[in-house]
């Protein structure tokens, strides 16, 4: 291609370029605006994933978290120093509004459990698992898979420490369950969660959400 030649990036819905119409980012945004994504947890995974989805133009984001922002969260979570002490859901709604005010954000300040998950995330086209504790991850996966059959769930598992880019992967288990992460590192005192690896997994989760939504009508 000649230097200076104008390159227009185009995207298409679905895997096949045949019979699929081409889309510019403005079209992609319009398409994504029709959908609702639930995010369970607004920590390192949830806050970064939510902002990536908001920038991409997802129409409605349902956030659920019961925590308050602490200073130690700022090493990886999408919050600012002047937001320490605020509810994560409230601060994240504010931060989303500052990046893309067109996104409709619904917040729930609740600890999620088997009973309230189907209500809180009812109507969501995709759900993102963004908890830190593994027992909560298990509870959410079991609840969504059993009580909300057919709803795709994107799980984050394994992102502690730093480096080791080559170990972070994406795996589709079936049409309703997807995993992002190294599936092996666990957070501990000498293997803390840090912005780069947590951010990579959060953005991988957002990337899977968009891939799924782009195939939905």
């Amino acid at each position, binding site marked *: 291609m000649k230097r200076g030649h104008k390159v227009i990036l185009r995207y298409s819905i679905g895997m096949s370029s045949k019979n699929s119409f081409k889309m510019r980012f403005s079209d992609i945004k319009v398409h994504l605006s029709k959908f609702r994504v639930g995010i369970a*947890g607004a*920590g*390192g*995974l*949830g806050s970064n994933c939510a902002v990536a989805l908001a920038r991409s133009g997802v129409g409605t984001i349902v956030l659920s978290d019961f925590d308050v922002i602490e200073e130690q969260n700022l090493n990886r979570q999408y919050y600012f120093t002047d937001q320490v002490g605020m509810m994560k859901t409230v601060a994240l709604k504010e931060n989303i509004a500052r990046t893309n005010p067109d996104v409709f954000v619904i917040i729930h300040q609740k600890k999620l459990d088997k009973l309230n998950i189907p209500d809180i995330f009812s109507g969501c086209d995709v759900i993102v698992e*963004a*908890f*830190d*504790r*593994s*027992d909560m*991850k*298990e509870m959410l*996966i*079991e609840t969504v*898979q*059993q009580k909300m059959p057919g709803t795709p769930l994107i*799980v*984050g*598992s*394994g*992102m*502690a420490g730093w480096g080791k880019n080559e170990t972070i992967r994406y*795996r589709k*288990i*079936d049409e309703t*369950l997807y*995993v992002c*992460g*190294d*599936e*092996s*590192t*666990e*957070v501990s005192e000498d293997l803390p*969660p840090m912005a780069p690896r*947590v951010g990579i997994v959060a953005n991988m989760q957002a990337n899977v959400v968009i891939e799924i939504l782009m195939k939905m009508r």
Partner: protein
Amino acid sequence: MKILLNNRKEEFEMDSISVSKMLLLKKFSFRMRIIKINGVLISREKYDSTIIKDGDNVQMLYLMSGG
């Protein structure tokens, strides 16, 4: 019997085994996990009573804390 375990072929001498027995035989000791057999999620309390048979597609996912 032959099964698929995370998309890899696995062979066991028995004709069928419980989920608990499979975890023991394979020495999968890490506790936090999700298991799906032929697309159906098996809760932890059903590991003893759920039987894996020849041809089953078993998917396992480890849940690591952090996020």
